[in-house]
């Protein structure tokens, strides 16, 4: 087992958002403030790790034909748990993430990792994979929400950087989400092109 390699894959070479292009909806929708980004990122990491472990444990029991439905039920169970926990202990974050917490069920990252990794590997690598891919997702969310919060409302994690009058409100609206993510993926492709050219 190779934790370093899995971590590098999750964060850079196989980053779930920037390279695999999975989980777009939540990435675009909730990255308006840093606290939202961190809350969503950590929730997805927790659910991804738990579902990876569980599916890896059950990989020899689940019949081939109904595997997708079984995965969705496992994932939905964990999502409901996280949803209730957030409502109980972090009601502010639960309020601002709204419908996107239950929608983690249909977040393609989790189903994709269940299908392509957890169902073929032992429990420990599956857990590490969940954590690494979750971290990659969280990092992208935090970077994106930092950019959008700074430009869109002139603050960082709630602390004011410049007066709100000078902020481009557009960046906090849906437009800003599309533009920021487009620019980030372009940056990623530019880095990959550079790396290929260097060799």
């Amino acid at each position, binding site marked *: 087992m190779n934790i370093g390699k899995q971590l590098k894959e999750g964060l850079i070479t196989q980053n779930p958002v920037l390279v695999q*292009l*999975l989980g*777009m*909806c*939540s990435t*675009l*929708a909730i990255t308006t403030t840093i606290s939202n980004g961190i809350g969503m990122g950590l929730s997805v990491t927790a659910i991804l790790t738990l579902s990876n472990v569980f599916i890896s444990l059950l990989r020899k029991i689940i019949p081939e034909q109904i595997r*997708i*439905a079984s995965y*969705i*039920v496992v994932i*939905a*169970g964990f*999502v*409901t748990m996280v*949803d*209730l926990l957030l409502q109980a202990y972090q009601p502010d974050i639960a309020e601002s993430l709204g*419908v996107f917490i*239950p*929608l983690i*069920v*249909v*977040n*393609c990252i989790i*189903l994709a990792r269940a299908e392509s990794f957890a169902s073929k590997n032992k429990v420990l690598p599956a857990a590490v994979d969940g954590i690494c891919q979750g971290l990659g997702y969280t990092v992208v969310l935090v970077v994106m929400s930092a950019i959008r919060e700074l430009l869109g409302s002139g603050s960082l994690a709630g602390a004011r950087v410049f007066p709100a009058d000078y902020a481009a409100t*557009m960046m906090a*609206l*849906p*437009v*800003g*989400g*599309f*533009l920021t*993510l*487009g*620019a980030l*993926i*372009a*940056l990623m*492709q*530019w880095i990959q*092109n550079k790396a290929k050219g260097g060799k």
Partner: protein
Amino acid sequence: MEWTTLFDIALGAILVNNFILVQFLGICPFMGVSKKMDTAVGMGFAVIFVMGLASALCYPVNLLLDSLGLGYMKTVAFILVIAALVQFVEMFLKKSIPTLYEALGVYLPLITTNCAVLGVVLLNVQENYNFIESVVYGITGGAGFLLAIVLFASIRERLEFSDPPKAFRGFPIALITAGLMALCFMGFSGLQIPW
């Protein structure tokens, strides 16, 4: 039941709160299936169909769960209903309208993981819509999806011949385009019919 409320819901779902460009629901198929016009249209109609049916079916399921005091099982129950529904629609189309089935191909099963479908059902519950309002919201939400994906596909077909910077080729330029479309749809915000 007032026609005006229904019209308000429809207008909101199609233009003001467009599912893709304002609420960010259903981005995956929006990006994945919009390279060609005819597949985009097929996907759009399949989504209208499934969203309408899912809204209708999940309404009694929600009432049942609430009366049993199992409200916290909503997410699990709804996703199971949607998965089963998509499976049945697939089998039905295969038997009775094979041409449509062929045309939709791989996109039908993909609708299960389209967040617009689960999203519309959850929003119906959140907004306390009654049965008719739920179905109208589902169908018009799908129509908003169709509108956005058709517009986007026609832009992308032309984008094929453009020459953006190398790093922006493919996905990034498509996202920027979608961003500009979202900017246009911002013009609809505040649109209201004075009754």
